[in-house]
């Protein structure tokens, strides 16, 4: 898939990230997802179905974070599994030396320190993924046009896109690279990243954190409010060179 760059670079905590590098990480992620799907299919296991919609976004974000950090010497993946942000900016020796101190030695092993990595005081980039919100009444449209009751894993949703929103477990995500993906018709329904946005957010751009309901399998979560969505949609970084996606994104107010 080819991509259109919407800006030259993004600048985060002293690190300049050329859009070519951001797109290269997208291409690596997309290729990895396709290979991963093939690998799991060989053993009769549909990875994305097993992961479920609830986890797919998180896994794509994790994979993308790894490839993004691997492509730039000033970026490092947060070594703590619960660390934040996801990718640390390490623009100079001072930060690099500090990062070395973010580990503790236990039983001869070097273990990442949660208190120093969640959050990391020198900042970095939070990576979040979304498949987008569907239009209201989409189930009726699905039944009418495709004879299905609801979306299933692998079914492209682009024609039902009504907005972009990103979810988080807290409101601390400030420098966010928000990815938009869809199940790709051209890749046997494997999820592929279609566009990316970069926004500098404050806690005011998120809704109040909800801690869920004991009757449902829901985590603590928050999502962008109207102002947060506007910030993200006003700052596209790249978009797939595909008319359907460009039009769908323009229709929801993305400035491409």
């Amino acid at each position, binding site marked *: 898939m080819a991509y259109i760059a919407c800006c030259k670079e993004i600048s985060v905590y002293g690190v300049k990230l050329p859009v070519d590098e951001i797109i290269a990480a997208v291409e*690596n992620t997309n290729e*990895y997802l396709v*290979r*991963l799907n093939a*690998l*799991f299919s*060989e*053993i*009769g*296991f549909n990875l994305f179905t*097993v*992961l*479920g919609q*609830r*986890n797919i976004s*998180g*896994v794509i974000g*994790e*994979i993308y974070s*790894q*490839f993004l950090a*691997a492509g730039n010497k000033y970026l490092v993946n947060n070594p703590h*599994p*619960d660390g934040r942000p996801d990718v640390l900016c390490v623009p100079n020796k001072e930060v690099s030396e500090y990062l070395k101190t973010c580990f503790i030695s*236990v*039983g*001869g*092993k070097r*273990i990442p320190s949660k208190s120093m990595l969640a959050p990391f005081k020198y900042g970095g980039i939070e990576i979040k993924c979304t498949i987008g919100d569907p239009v209201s009444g989409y189930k009726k449209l699905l039944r009418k046009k495709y004879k299905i009751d609801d979306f299933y894993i692998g079914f492209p949703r682009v024609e039902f896109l009504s907005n972009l929103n990103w979810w988080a*477990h*807290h409101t601390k995500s400030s420098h966010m690279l928000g990815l938009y993906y869809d199940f790709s018709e051209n890749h046997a329904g494997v999820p592929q990243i279609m566009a990316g946005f970069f926004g500098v957010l404050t806690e005011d751009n998120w809704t109040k*954190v909800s*801690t*869920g*309901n*004991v*009757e*449902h*399998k*829901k*985590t*603590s979560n928050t999502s962008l409010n109207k102002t947060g969505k506007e910030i993200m949609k006003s700052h596209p970084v790249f978009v797939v060179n595909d008319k359907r996606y460009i039009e769908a994104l323009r229709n929801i107010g993305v400035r491409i």
Partner: protein
Amino acid sequence: MEYIQISNRPITLSHISITPDQIFEAIRRTNQKFAHIGIETAKMALDIFNVIDFRVFSGMLGEAYATTLEEVLDHKLVKNPSIDGYPDLLQNVTPEMQKYFKSCGYEQFLDYKYGGIEVKNTFGTKKNGAPILMGDQRIGYINDKLDWKAHHRKTNHLLALFSDYYNGRPVIAAVFYSDSLTPDDWQKVQRPKEGSTMTSFSTIEKSGCEKLRKGMMFCLNDPAYLEFFGVEVK
């Protein structure tokens, strides 16, 4: 990798009996699947098992086992299609059950009238300050009590898996079953704390663990695991 069979008792539901051989075959196949994926992803730039969130991965292993057991049983148990459904594997033995299954919607899958079994996996809860990272063998660094989690306290007919990284690969290290769990064997349902990535959950009580321990079916034939579970090898 060898296992010791601890119990000869089958798992008996109203319309199906699952033999220890079938339980073991599902362990063997699940381990094989994960070994294959580990080997293949290691050839790529990124090991998928180092990327997936640990809680998600633990759940995936349970899902993979449930899927495999469904295959082994020739779909006499089928996976509950609802994410909020109970139990995880549904009895689907008679034509009547099969017809009913096809007619069900979200509400019916929440508490399936023909029942089945729940499948839950745990890697054990790390002791405070234990120096282990993703991919490290955990036995010796986890609490004695295994914390199987469910989303409510009604969970019974539980096939409980304990997994670990063994020779660098995720494997099912032991399997337990109990059909005598009551709500009192589960702790009060916890709401996730703000900022937490957990869902609402109930953790098994010590009493529930003891019931499962009495229903131990298989364990890796390795002193570290046999000792952890207090299994005496004759």
